[in-house]
């Protein structure tokens, strides 16, 4: 198990496969805490409203139940939600965070209880100051409760199942009319270069228009320097379209491009 350079925890399985868990920082975790704190307040008020009905029978009993209910909700909220939602509270769900075992194993009930009960010391002197400092200092961004429970908090961005069709479906690629140049492009490109081009295409809608133009100009220029396609092929082709064609060449085998696996191409020349 290694600690990655950019707040990630890398775990190597006995099969020799490495996977990385992106660790959540103190600021995100504090925001999740604020959401949870709001939830506890709302829940406690709702319960006190319901319990207040006992006041018809006895005011003393209603008050006693309100005190007990607030205490149970404030202590039990984190334990119950993290256990039933496998490491998530409402705040953590909103911010896409999850509590995990520090070794990547299944989260145990004991771990959930310990990390929640030790909030008493992490919360000192106020607003999780001790916990926040511990988070900043610790290599795995653990607060004291996490250290005792052997847990970490990771970021879990929403993951979509991979689907290349959204990227390259129904588009004619003029580069494939020159199979020898396409083969040279495949041979001369590294997986990292191909990955950069693909990532740029997948994230193009999230970019600022100016940055998008500049980025695709740089990437297209890089691939143009590797293999020069004839001018009649590249003429009128935007940089983004050029990169799209490059990615298509790099990530589809020649069999697929000739109709083996790929979708039917339109005859529109681009």
């Amino acid at each position, binding site marked *: 198990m290694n600690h990655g350079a950019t707040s990630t925890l890398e775990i190597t399985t006995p099969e020799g496969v490495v996977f990385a868990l992106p660790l959540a920082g103190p600021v995100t975790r504090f925001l999740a805490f604020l959401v949870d704190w709001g939830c506890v307040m709302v829940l406690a008020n709702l319960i006190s409203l319901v319990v207040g009905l006992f006041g018809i029978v006895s005011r003393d009993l209603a008050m006693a139940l309100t005190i007990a209910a607030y205490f149970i909700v404030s202590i039990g909220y984190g334990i119950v939600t993290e256990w039933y939602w496998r490491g998530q509270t409402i705040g953590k769900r909103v911010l896409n965070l999850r509590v995990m075992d520090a070794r990547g*194993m299944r989260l145990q009930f004991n771990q959930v209880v310990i990390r929640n009960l030790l909030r*008493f*010391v992490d919360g000192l002197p106020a607003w999780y100051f001790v916990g926040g400092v511990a988070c900043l200092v610790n290599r795995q961004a653990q607060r*004291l409760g996490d250290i005792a429970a052997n847990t970490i908090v990771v970021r879990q961005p929403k993951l979509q199942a991979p689907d290349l069709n959204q990227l390259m479906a129904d588009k004619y690629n003029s580069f494939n009319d020159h199979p020898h140049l396409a083969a040279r492009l495949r041979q001369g490109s590294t997986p990292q270069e191909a990955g950069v081009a693909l990532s740029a295409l997948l994230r193009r809608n999230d970019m600022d228009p100016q940055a998008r133009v500049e980025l695709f100009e740089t990437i297209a220029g890089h691939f143009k320097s590797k293999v020069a396609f004839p001018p009649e092929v590249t003429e009128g082709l935007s940089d983004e379209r050029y990169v799209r064609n490059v990615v298509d060449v790099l*990530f589809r085998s020649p069999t*697929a491009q000739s109709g083996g*696996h790929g979708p039917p191409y339109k005859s529109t020349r681009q």
Partner: protein
Amino acid sequence: MIIDLEQFITEEKPHWQALEKVLDRLANDPQQILPVAEVRRLHYLYQRASADLARIRTFCAEENIRRYLESLVARGFAEIHETRAKPRRLRPLHWFFGSLPRAFRRHFKAFALACLLFGIGGVFGGAAIWLDPEAKPVLMPFAHLKGDPSERVAMEENAGKDRLEEQKSTFSSHLMTHNTKVSLFVMALGMTWGLGTALLLFTNGIMLGAVAMDYILAGETTFLLGWLMPHGVIEIPAILVAGQAGLMIGGALLGGRNAEPLRFRFRDIAADLITLIGAVAIMLVWAGIIEAFLSQYHAPVLPYSLKIGFGVVELTLLIVFLTYGGRGQTVATLTNWRLALWPKAGRPRKAG
């Protein structure tokens, strides 16, 4: 070499989805036990996803697929390589009569140390009041204890009406929650290598010692025992058990002669910590009820002998429970030895 991403996804996606489905099922019902065939299938799918991740990391820098596979492999890894027992369904009676006293005895040294720290505090507090009565305003925890004990006893015994009328449940609830918070704090401060826990036990001891000595010096020992014993014989041990838990945390942090890594030291005490904190909560709920409904009533409403006797019974039961509770296994072993030494003793007698 760059892999044909489309072909790769087309071929592998059904297996990823199948793995995801099994993992979702296991996550939704952690208690379920998969048949052997399904376990083999899960293992196969996990290994296939691991191999796919290795290929993606080596031959393609595509971020989304790598993240997706990493998340899948991480989930599979937790299921396949987990060697700790799955949590059993809650068995409250088994936990209370078995696990709890056994956990207490397993860490008796920590409890003894908590008692020692509390006791030293008590002696210190008592000695301070005895030697310097002027220190009373500093040492007494509550305002109503700063006055003259004899005056308070006279006032309590001559009280015409119930002070806690229509407030007993609220008072009880307040005591339970307050004391539980204090106990959790005592336990949590174990993360200061046990120093915070030790300090809190010592200061609580000082306060109790000071109060006790103040009443003893005023000749109000009977009142003191009648007032404190019904709830104190449970409440004080509860605080000491919380201290025991805190010192266990401190001990795990320090390590001492235990050369295991920190995470193993914490893992070893985790279950017992939770059990002890559960015990503290139960004890404090009981103490809160007794304090509100019994301890606050004095002679002539409730004779002191009755209150002290009740406290003695509670304390005896608590000691017996913590000393002998959960020894079912020991009883079974003793029975087996008896049968081994005197085989006839266990046989049914012949008729006639």
